[in-house]
């Protein structure tokens, strides 16, 4: 699999501390993309799934999960699905970013795409749209993007947004 980079400790790519894999190659080419160097499919570096699993094992302490970002992760769905299953066996959860929408993904009957989708706990979908940029958003760049609870969505047959447990909702009296 072709990767543009690995960040072993991220605070901004999903809940908790996360091990993040940035895939190489993207077809969306969003304007004002954060990582345009990840667009060409022939740049970056080749890794085997086993190599990445070995790295992950060394870094899994204190991690809540693994995140696939990019690039467009679904262009390398088969390998990432294997990686996601390995991560789940290590009790790590899986967050996958994509420039496609959930609806676009399920329309496609590719078994690898389904495998990666259903190996993910959370899907953050949609292209980055600069005109909808909002720096106050959690884990996302623009307000069209959604944080989707994959399991609940599958069970419900329609998109269910992920619900974060909020312990600290208290506010000051006026």
């Amino acid at each position, binding site marked *: 699999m072709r990767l543009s980079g690995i*960040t*072993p*400790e*991220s*605070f*901004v790519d999903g*809940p*908790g*501390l*996360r091990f993040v894999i940035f895939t190489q190659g993207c077809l969306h080419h969003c304007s004002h993309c954060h990582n345009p160097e990840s667009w060409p499919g022939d740049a970056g570096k080749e890794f085997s799934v086993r190599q990445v699993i070995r790295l992950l094992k060394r870094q899994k*302490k*204190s*991690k*809540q999960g693994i995140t696939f970002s990019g690039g467009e992760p679904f262009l390398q769905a088969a390998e990432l699905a294997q990686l996601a299953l390995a991560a789940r066996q290590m009790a790590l959860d899986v967050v996958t970013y994509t420039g496609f929408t959930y609806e676009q993904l399920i329309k496609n009957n590719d078994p690898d795409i389904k495998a990666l989708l259903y190996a993910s706990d959370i899907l953050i979908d949609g292209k980055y749209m600069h005109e909808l940029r909002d*720096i106050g*958003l*959690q*884990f996302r760049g623009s307000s069209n993007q959604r944080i989707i609870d994959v399991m609940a969505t599958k069970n419900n047959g329609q998109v269910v947004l992920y619900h974060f447990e909020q*312990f*600290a909702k*208290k*506010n*000051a*009296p006026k």
Partner: protein
Amino acid sequence: MFTSIIKRDGRTQDFHESKITDAIFKGLQAVSEADRQQAMELTLEVMKKIRAKYKEDSFSVENVQDIVETVLIENGLAKSAKSYILYRENRSRLREARSELMDAVSEILLETNRENANIGNSPSAKVLQISEVASKNYYLKRMLPEKEANSHINGDIYIHDLSWYGKTLTCLQIPLDRLLREGFNNGHGYIRPPKGIKTAAALAAIILQSNQNDMHGGQSFAYFDRDMAVYVELEKKRQDKLIRSNLELLGLSADETKLEALVLERTKEETYQAMEGFIYNLNTMHSRAGAQVPFSSINFGTDTSEAGRMVTECFLLAYEKGLGKGEAPLFPNVCFKLKEDVNFEPEDPNYDLFQLSMRVACKRLFPNFSFQDSSFNKQFRDEEVAYMGCRTRVISNCNGPAVTNSRGNLSFTTINLPRLAIRAEKDLSCFWKSLDEMLEHCVQQLITRYNVQKKLKVKDFPFLMGQKLFLDSEGLSPNDSIEKSIRHGTLSIGFIGLAECLVALTGKHHGESAEAQALGISIVSHMRRRCDEAVQKYSLNFSLLATPAEQLSGKFTKPDAEQYGVIPGVTDKEWYTNSFHVPVEYQISAMDKIALEGPYHKYCNAGHISYVELPSAPEHNLEAFEALIRAMAEADMGYAAVNFPVDICCDCGLNGVISEDSCPKCGGSNISRVRRITGYLSTLDRFNDSKLAEVQYRQVHQKF
């Protein structure tokens, strides 16, 4: 006839022959029975020579002194001449000291120096600084043994708060519960115990302020939630009575459940107002020596009663809201105590307050977190170990009960570790030997100072001792010495620049090599062992401190660079790295930093803190914040905090990372940039130069 003479500073002054006679008389007096008549005769000879040598009014004080010496020798008074010369030298040394002092004064008058980030630039601040310089000079030149003074001046060690050397002690965990329960007198009359939460909070601020004027260091409350909870209960009763009597006046009756809910709501409102007032007070009373707000700290988070929880929650919410325009409160220093079965796990009663404290920290950098279950804090089962100010920890006691309240540090002195390493020239046995010598030197220096401090009297501390705040001061009268009480305090040896020390010894610091880390642990544990031995030997509470390096960050490095040259990784920056920290400019993951620094906490029993630097506040990811805190607990840390830039637009209140010069929301250019400086918060414009350089080099543990 001569009418004027040229003084040393070039000014012209009226000439009086009698002054020459006085000086000669003093010279004669020093060797034998003095004779005024003889002095006058010698003066005539001096005048004759002056007239022969100089034209009218063209000679200086120096010229006259030279002639006096010649005349004394010519008259067979060689001994007197010698004593005259000594008298002259002595006078000129005093003059030099005075002119050094005057230079310092004129510098201060230009701009108050930035040694301490809490000092402003007001007239009072300048007077404070001038008196500090004068005191420092006095202690160094007149009071300290020469060896101790010299090692401070040349930068082998740093004697902290030298300007307060013989006047007071460092800091205190104030027994707030007792002072409020019994009332107190801060010099102008007796203050009764409060009956509601607002008065209690106002008095708490006054207590911090009153004691700050008796001490130079941090003032802290160890059990703020528990101690204030009593007055929340009283407030509840007060509100209940008030509402019932109002209803009665209106001839109304109310549903009991609704009434109770209303009482609770009113009590909470009052508590919130009280906490807000407390925070406002601590950020506005410039009462520390007239120029600084008190170095105040509070510890809380473990009281699980309804009232105690209300104190913690209301304080956090008021702290989050900030000052009038949303500015970050710089004080008090807030420490949230984490404890198993109380607030550490989701099923614990105060877990929600832990979550809230992290949310507040995302916006305000405080609270810091203390770990009650670390291996070295857990052993004090009946006590909670509170931290003060930047990191001070006081608990063990070789002279009495190991308690938190009513105790503090007496004085501390820091060792320049990198210098010992540079001098050893990679010879480890040479390093260990010089480290032992330096530790022994510090022990003796702390004892010298203790011997000065213990002679102070109860009446020298009207509040601290007069109101019996310090342990075992109950039985003392105003004229008694404070020794019986202060033997419960700590004497601490600190260190700075472990990282640079390791580079000088091995070529790598503890972030770069496991070997350096192993050496670092043996150095720090060795220093602790020497402290423990001193406890046994002298029956005083010696302890090892991971020094807060604010005043030191430039003071050791500059002379070392001048003396030993620029050594890469050692003297090539403007500062030495804080205590045992991994250098701020070194790129390392947060988890690795935590794992590396954790093991040092247990050795530094006088205080320790570790930081993790993030590129921005993890406000949308409290899970990640919590993961960091949990990793810190697992690494056996005692006290830790998470750092990130907090910029606030003073015009519209926008809070976040503002990388441009003006506010992206309202365009205002009045941006307050809050950063942490050795444990306390400050705004960037109050940092001293070497700290400013350090902040610019801080390496965040994650790149965007």
